[in-house]
């Protein structure tokens, strides 16, 4: 009886059923409005509206099934505000609407990890095709769809790759709060992202999309109905990003515990704050842009159709106004994780705290003034090039601030080479290469020859995978003992690190050479003299995928089978999250703590966070 009642309640199963029902309701509803035909695939070429409304109906049904409309409806009936849904224990809370920020953080970790895995598989398929210079494995259209799926999934999902799991889990704890500002919205951001991920994958049923992750016009207007899946996915990601950013900023600004002044804020919180500011301001432009594209495809508007008074360059400009800050949405949390973890393993205070904060804020600000460097070879007015070249190169200064702060923190430190630290150290190497090669792309003359080649592709993999994904894994190894109460296997972790680090460089460094030799991105064939490089890269990529399996094995083995309890503070950190039991109790603190020191006082006494006016839940 209990099981049956759970099955018919508001949960993931109900959400999936209503999601499918909503999809069909939208599909048939649109046909009822715009045409008599109900032929499933036969008429989608001339009825984009039915597909868009089908997905919108599906998302609405999904959210209804999870119970997201219950609260707004009760508010419309006049009931007063409340903070949380009914909270239960057990595994079931991970499969539905849960307003505990720690559960949402773990939901994000698993959900994003799942789509990261799919994105990685797409990369393997791409590299399979590139084993031979003439395309043989996939038709060219399928290859382009694979490239698009890989790029879009990674770029879209990883906008919340660190803020989702670690931001949601840790920010309330790090600032001494019991919750996020808006717990239901926090949960909504996660489920919107999951709905979006499913929508993107279903593009394969509607012909895929040929544009890569940027969705450029006029290709986007002319593409298969699968293109609609791309636009809907990214629009949902944009909504999720905006809400996540608003929630994070509101939480940090209004819910810091007494004594936690701005100058005592952990650097990770500063990183989240600056990233959130980018999300709140850049993501709405993306949403508007994608909605314009959808209107062009469904409502006969002409935003991007030059023969009808529109312009494809409008899309390019608007997309990159979001797109370049997006790069920093991905990179800044990586900076922040590295700067947060380094002092723990160097046993030294963070060097140049204020300089690091200035670096994070400076990057955020400048990232809005560089977007046209993506259009250097796309017909931009030549007089504008020097300004955007200068502003792009200027951004290396605040980036350098964070780099210097990290390096100086290591200087004369008593460094422990634990797994999180290894990932942090590799970040310096990877991001340095990514940053230096970025100068070539910001410089107009060299960009003219490298733009659109594998050089660009190698550059952003060094910045995004080298900068973000390595920091992401540092965060996983560092905080999973806190999140789960169990330690990950150190030896397997080191095997994972070394294989990933070596194979990552073995995969992406040769692509700089391929790019210099003229291999273009998103083209299924290449010159025969480049086969050796491509084969090398493909084999390295397959092995790199294998190193991820080592992580997966470690994760499952350590958390499901071995379950070795983690010590209370396995890394000797002085940060407040390690003063709480692992995993952290539902409401974090029985009483709100009072902060009275800085979080990086290593070698300066026993602990920076004496909590005289409150104690962690379960500790008193």
């Amino acid at each position, binding site marked *: 009886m209990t099981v049956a009642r759970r099955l018919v309640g508001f949960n993931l199963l109900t959400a999936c059923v209503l999601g499918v029902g909503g999809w069909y309701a939208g599909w048939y509803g649109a046909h009822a409005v715009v045409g008599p035909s109900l032929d499933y695939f036969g008429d989608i070429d001339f009825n984009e509206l039915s597909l868009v409304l089908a997905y919108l109906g599906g998302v609405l049904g999904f959210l209804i099934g999870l119970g997201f409309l*219950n609260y*707004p409806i*009760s*508010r*419309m*009936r*006049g*009931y*007063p*505000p*409340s*903070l*949380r*849904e*009914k*909270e*239960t*224990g*057990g595994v079931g809370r991970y499969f539905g609407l849960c307003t505990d920020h720690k559960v949402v953080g773990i939901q994000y970790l698993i959900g994003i990890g799942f789509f990261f895995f799919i994105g990685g598989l797409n990369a393997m398929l791409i590299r399979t095709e590139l084993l031979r210079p003439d395309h043989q494995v996939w038709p060219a259209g399928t290859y382009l769809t694979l490239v698009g799926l890989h790029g879009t999934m990674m770029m879209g999902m990883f906008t919340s790759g660190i803020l989702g799991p670690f931001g949601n889990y840790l920010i309330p704890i790090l600032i001494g709060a*019991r919750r996020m*500002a*808006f717990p239901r919205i926090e949960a909504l951001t996660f489920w919107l992202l999951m709905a979006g991920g499913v929508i993107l994958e279903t593009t394969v049923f509607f012909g895929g999309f040929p544009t890569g992750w940027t969705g450029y016009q006029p290709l986007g207007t002319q593409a298969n109905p699968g293109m609609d899946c791309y636009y809907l996915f990214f629009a949902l990601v944009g909504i999720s990003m905006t809400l996540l*950013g*608003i*929630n994070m*900023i*509101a*939480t940090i600004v*209004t*819910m810091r515990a007494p004594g936690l002044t701005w100058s005592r804020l952990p650097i990770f919180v500063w990183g989240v704050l600056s990233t959130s500011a980018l999300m*709140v*301001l850049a*993501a*709405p*432009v993306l*949403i*508007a842009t994608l*909605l*314009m594209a959808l*209107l*062009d495809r469904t*409502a*006969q*508007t*002409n*935003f991007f159709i030059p*023969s*009808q*008074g*529109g*312009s494809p360059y*409008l899309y390019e*400009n*608007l997309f990159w*106004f979001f797109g370049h800050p997006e790069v920093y949405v991905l990179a800044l949390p990586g900076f922040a994780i590295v700067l947060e973890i380094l002092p723990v393993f160097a046993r030294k205070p963070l060097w140049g705290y204020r300089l690091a904060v200035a670096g994070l804020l400076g990057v955020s600000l400048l990232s809005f003034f560089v977007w046209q460097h993506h259009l250097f070879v796309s017909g931009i007015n030549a007089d504008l090039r020097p300004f955007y070249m200068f502003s792009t190169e200027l951004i290396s200064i605040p980036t350098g601030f964070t780099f210097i702060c990290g390096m100086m923190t290591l200087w004369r430190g008593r460094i422990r080479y634990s797994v999180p630290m290894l990932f942090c150290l590799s970040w310096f190497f990877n991001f340095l290469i990514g940053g230096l090669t970025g100068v070539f792309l910001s410089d107009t003359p060299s960009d003219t020859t490298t733009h659109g080649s594998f050089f660009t592709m190698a550059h952003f993999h060094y910045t995004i995978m080298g900068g973000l994904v390595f920091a992401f894994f540092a965060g996983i190894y560092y905080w999973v003992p806190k999140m789960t109460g169990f330690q990950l296997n150190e030896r397997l972790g080191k095997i994972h690190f070394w294989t990933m680090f070596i194979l990552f460089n073995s995969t992406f460094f040769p692509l700089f050479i391929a790019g210099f030799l003229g291999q273009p991105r998103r083209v299924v064939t290449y010159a025969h003299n480049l086969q050796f490089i491509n084969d090398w890269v493909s084999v390295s990529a397959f092995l790199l995928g294998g190193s991820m399996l080592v992580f997966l094995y470690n994760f499952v083995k350590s958390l499901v089978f071995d379950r070795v309890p983690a010590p209370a503070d396995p890394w000797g950190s002085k940060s407040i999250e390690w003063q709480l039991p692992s995993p952290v*109790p*539902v*409401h974090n603190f*029985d009483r709100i703590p009072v902060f009275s020191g800085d979080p990086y006082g290593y070698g300066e006494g026993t602990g920076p966070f004496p909590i005289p006016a409150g104690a962690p*839940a379960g500790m008193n």
Partner: protein
Amino acid sequence: MTELAQHTTDYEIVEGEAPEVLARNLSAASQLLASATAFFFVAFLFAYFYLRSLDNAGLWKPKHVDASVTWGTIVTFLFVASAILVRFGAVDQKADRRPAWRLKGVIALACGLVALVLQCVAWTQQSFGPADGGYASVFFGWTAFLFLFVLGTMLWLEMTLATSFRYGKQPMGEAAVAPGHASGDPGRMGHDIRNPVALNTAELLALSFYWTFLAGIAVVSWIILYLV
């Protein structure tokens, strides 16, 4: 003790958060939401000037494309009137003149909804459609999404009004609301917010700020789309 029982115990310990915390959350969030909204419409503003300056194929604004100033003025006037009424209503609510706020709130809601209906009528009365060039695209896109933003704001206004009506006779600060009503958890032992009805004022202030900001965007839209 099982994990669930332990969590439940912890949960009950912390019931009764001071309403001032959520009030601060709402105030900050309304300003952040306004920022996000501004950047959303900046994309349309950029599209307007970009396409207008290019005038591709001479189809920025063909001769027959001429948006009705009358319709635009009426709709914008009603948006602004609604926002002003909510602003004055918030002043009444702060001064504990709640009947006066509710009257203004109802009129503001009516103004907003009538404006939305008239916007729908206005679309059908224009001399052009969305396919008639760059201006037409911007016009229909911009007004359509402004419509959706205003609709969402009217839902928020309705929620605030509904709470005010339901608990209107209780003195502020002493509301006797059954725990868990709004949370979907009738078995809840206590409120997660102490005296949640006291939040009505904070919510109204946040709403008033956002609605005024959105009405400002509507005025800018009116100037750009109808007058320039």
